[in-house]
């Protein structure tokens, strides 16, 4: 029993995230659906737009995958995060914690996902280089689905 407790404590210590401070980051800017749509069309690059929130447990699960995808495909695909129904401090901590090193916007009233037609959190939208919405994935996204979505928008 003691060994089991010790193992649990060690596990908790090993997995405990370091004290991360997101206060130094500037506040996330706000954006609306039409503004994002125009931005995507002007950029001429395919895009993965992920709707997330710091309070959302499934978002935690997919965050490391999105960080890897952005690091791997960031040159050819733009990754954009839309933080919904959240507060700035928690949002910045979440970005720091998972190393989500791409552009994020703050959307307290969920106007962006509502504009593009997604319900719940998380959501992942895939846009081609013309800024047209190609696919919408509701819920946690897995490696294969994200890879397929990226492959589709880069080859169109």
């Amino acid at each position: 029993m003691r060994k089991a407790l010790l193992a649990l404590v060690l596990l908790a210590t090993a997995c405990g995230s370091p004290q991360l401070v997101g206060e130094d980051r500037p506040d996330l800017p706000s954006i609306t659906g039409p503004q994002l749509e125009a931005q995507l069309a002007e950029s001429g690059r395919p895009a993965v737009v992920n709707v997330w929130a710091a309070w959302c447990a499934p978002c935690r699960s997919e965050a490391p995958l999105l960080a890897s995808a952005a690091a791997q495909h960031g040159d050819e695909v733009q990754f954009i995060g839309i933080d919904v129904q959240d507060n700035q401090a928690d949002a910045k901590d979440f970005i720091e914690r998972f190393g989500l090193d791409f552009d994020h916007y703050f959307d307290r009233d969920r106007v962006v996902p509502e504009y593009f037609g997604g319900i719940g959190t998380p959501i992942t939208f895939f846009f081609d280089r013309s800024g047209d919405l190609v696919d919408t994935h509701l819920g946690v996204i897995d490696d294969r689905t994200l890879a397929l979505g990226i492959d589709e928008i880069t080859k169109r």
Partner: protein
Amino acid sequence: MEFTLLWAALTAVAAAWLGTRVWRASLPDSPTERIVSSAAAGLLVGRIAEMIGQGINPITNLSDLLIIRGGVSVPAATVAAIGTLWWTSNRDLSVVDSFSAPALVGLAGWHAGCLWRSACLGTVSDLPWALAEPGSTITRHPVELYAAVGLVLASLLVSRIPPKPGLRSAAALGLAALVRLVTEPFRLSVTGGPVFWYVVGLSLALLAGTALVWRHREI
């Protein structure tokens, strides 16, 4: 759990049940309980391992364990499932062997469950049987269906192996790894390559091959 994933899981359970009906003569009593407990242990341990790998503390984020879609570590899940079956079978390898073929059919069901999830497709292909995403003109390998077919063939092969303790289990492990190895190049991955899974597949195949040789030496 999303409904599509739930349907895929149910397909796997139904396939495993079908396997137990086909090979029921060689199975011990209450096979369903053993399959369910092994699968549950595999999912739990695999999910915990995946969370640790992602830097998410499974103790302080207990509810995240239920988010299966967030990822399950296949090597950890495999070891846990086989270990649980072995332990609940009083460490009798011949009992573990009897589940080899039904387990492969269950795995085939899991892969075929991609049809429910619209997640069968892999790399681009011009072959006549290649399929396209809805609304897309890009045709792709239905890689998960390749895996399902491969696993069904593997189960038939395993069921024909002589019943020597450990032999069928080792062969099933090796064949499952082989199917993974052969189909992996047709899959897409965010990290852009099958290198990791090649290592996993090769390791499992090597392990199984070694076990096979070891068993033959003993018998």
